[in-house]
């Protein structure tokens, strides 16, 4: 008959937690790395594109061309989307575009002013360095705005026949660093579970440390539950620390009311639990300490990026959307986004909770089935 009671289970849990909190390198990796990613990725991807050098070749030099140039200079001075550099020769401007010295060349053709006056389909040329899709999108959009303003004329008519759209945003404006925050909290939890749990366990196995407790009467369930609870608490700790620091860095610190803190901590425990069981299932028969270190890169790519943490899943091709459906990160990111950015309560994340709980149960059952009590 197996050893009864919670003491052996408690022993495993207590030991794992002590080892985690006494490993500065693991603490740093599981807490500082995600926060660093939040800052760097959040600000690198989240800002507006500004100051793109643009060559302007004015082959017209008429009054309408002058008005247009004034508008470009207004953008240069205010929105600062681009900086205009006048070029005399079209060939030279195109060379500069090809070589990446400028991001685009705007060409005002010879007959531009005459065609504008005659209303004879005047055209502007925009030659783009299309190797950078972000710059292309921004410049095209800005040029369209400039031309739209030019076409409207100086006096707005009293009655408009065109249909216009009035946009109402139900949540406050979300900056990219805020959009990224749920993914980073998820990543912190995952890193902690993998580095502080999976890798340490396999290292123990390789060093033979687990032999010493396998000869004790601890049952398989006590051992696995002890390791699971320790992993869950470690992951929840990392997730919570990154949440509290992350909301301050992202400028949404006011979201931390008592009820949100309780909800976030509870949800972090569940997210952590699902990751522990998933990783335990992947590592249950692994003996080689190199494996989790290699797997960490694969899992990071396979779980983090398809989850909608950095980009909306609706933009994904079908096959990637299917990966997202089976990815626990997806439900974690969705839950944290609902609580921290939309500031909605428990009912809004019930679906995420059910799916994460199901992942935990299925994976933990698999671990129970596959774990070998003997060597």
């Amino acid at each position, binding site marked *: 008959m197996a050893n009864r009671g919670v*003491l052996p289970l408690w*022993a495993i849990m207590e030991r794992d937690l002590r080892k985690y909190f006494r*490993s500065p390198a693991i603490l740093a990796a599981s807490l500082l790395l995600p926060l660093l990613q939040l800052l760097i990725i959040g600000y690198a991807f989240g800002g507006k594109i500004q100051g793109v050098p643009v060559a302007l070749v004015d082959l017209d030099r008429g009054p309408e061309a002058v008005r247009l140039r004034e508008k470009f200079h207004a953008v240069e001075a205010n929105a600062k989307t681009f900086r205009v550099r006048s070029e005399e020769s079209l060939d030279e401007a195109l060379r500069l575009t090809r070589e990446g010295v400028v991001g685009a060349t705007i060409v005002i053709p010879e007959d531009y002013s005459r065609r504008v006056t005659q209303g004879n389909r005047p055209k502007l040329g925009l030659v783009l360095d299309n190797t950078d899709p972000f710059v292309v999108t921004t410049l095209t959009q800005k040029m369209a705005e400039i031309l739209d303003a030019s076409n409207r004329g100086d006096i707005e008519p009293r009655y408009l026949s065109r249909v216009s759209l009035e946009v109402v945003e139900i949540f406050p404006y979300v900056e990219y660093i805020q959009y990224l925050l749920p993914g980073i909290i998820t990543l912190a939890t995952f890193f902690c579970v993998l580095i502080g749990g999976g890798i340490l366990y396999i290292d123990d196995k390789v060093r*033979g440390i687990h032999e*010493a407790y*396998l000869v*004790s009467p601890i049952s398989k369930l006590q051992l696995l539950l002890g390791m699971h609870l320790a992993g869950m608490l470690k992951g929840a700790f990392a997730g919570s620390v990154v949440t509290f620091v992350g909301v301050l860095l992202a400028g949404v610190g006011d979201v931390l009311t008592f009820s949100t803190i309780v909800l976030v901590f509870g949800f972090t425990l569940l997210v952590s639990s699902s990751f522990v069981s998933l990783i335990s299932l992947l590592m249950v028969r692994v003996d080689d300490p190199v494996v989790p270190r290699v797997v960490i890169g694969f899992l990071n790519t396979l779980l983090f990026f398809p989850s909608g943490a950095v980009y909306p899943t609706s933009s994904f091709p079908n096959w990637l959307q299917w990966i997202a459906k089976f990815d626990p990160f997806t439900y974690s990111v969705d839950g944290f986004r609902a609580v921290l950015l939309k500031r909605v309560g428990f009912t809004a994340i019930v679906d995420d909770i059910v799916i994460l709980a199901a992942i935990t149960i299925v994976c933990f059952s698999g671990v129970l089935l596959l774990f070998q009590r*003997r060597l």
Partner: protein
Amino acid sequence: MSAIVAEGLQKDFGNFVAVNGVSLRVEEGENFALLGPNGAGKSTFIRMLTTLITPTAGTARVGGHDIRTEADAVRRTIGVVPQPITSDLKLTAAENLDFYAKLYSVPGARRRKLVPELLEWIGLIDWRDKLVGTFSIGMRRRLEIARCLVHGPSIIFLDEPTTGLDPASRISMWEMVSRVKSERTVTVFLTTHYMEEADELCDRIAIFDHGTIVAEGTPSELKSQLPSSEVIEVRFDSPPDGWADSVRALAGVEDIDEEEGLFRVHSNDRSRTLAAVVDAARLRGVAISTIALRDSTLEDVFIHFTGRATRDETGKIRFDARLIER
């Protein structure tokens, strides 16, 4: 009652037979050693007895419990010091003992008394709150001896407990095992490849090689099976072909074996044989580089039964160092 009874215990790893149908009996309160070189199958054998691995065939009863069907009862009965150093380096000495006591469900009040007692007993009480990562290997081994006693086992298994220890730590470990034996009612089952360790610590020894027991008995019983009680170890500079046969024919020589240039001449009349060896070498112009006289040891017993010397971790013959010491 026997503490350990193995019957036809066998372990195969694919086509490799690590332990080949071994049967043995260890009586309660006995100190028993499984003596053999690295790779002989000793650790596999001890891992089967301690329920870490499942035998391919046969079974054993440890403390009266079957290792196959009553593994938990066996685990409650035994204390184990595995071959690898298994103390948690990130825990303190006291935390390590407390952790293992909890694994055996030792109640809190008992643990609070037991842990300092055990630390005192192994001489580490001043180190109780220091991380084990700062300990020497010898200190970790002492801690592991204490650790295997936290639940008061009746049988303790020590798998090569002194491997990797310096000579002083090894002697300290021997003293500790002797103290365990004298102060507690326990059966000690240890594996070792050190002859002197088995000779020093154990009442009975089984010589283990290639997964089987080749000889078994008390140290004196085993030594008595040798053809002689004394050995002359001699190394010659460039001995001529057939030199071993020439030495074998000398007065008083009972037996001779040679390994890597070292001749072990067994004799029951060492003065006469020693003179004969020296004379023979002088007459044939063969220079003697080293020569030593000693009584027969378990090493000779091992060589007698297996035809080779035990080897250390690097596979180097250990005789040379011992000759220099003499």
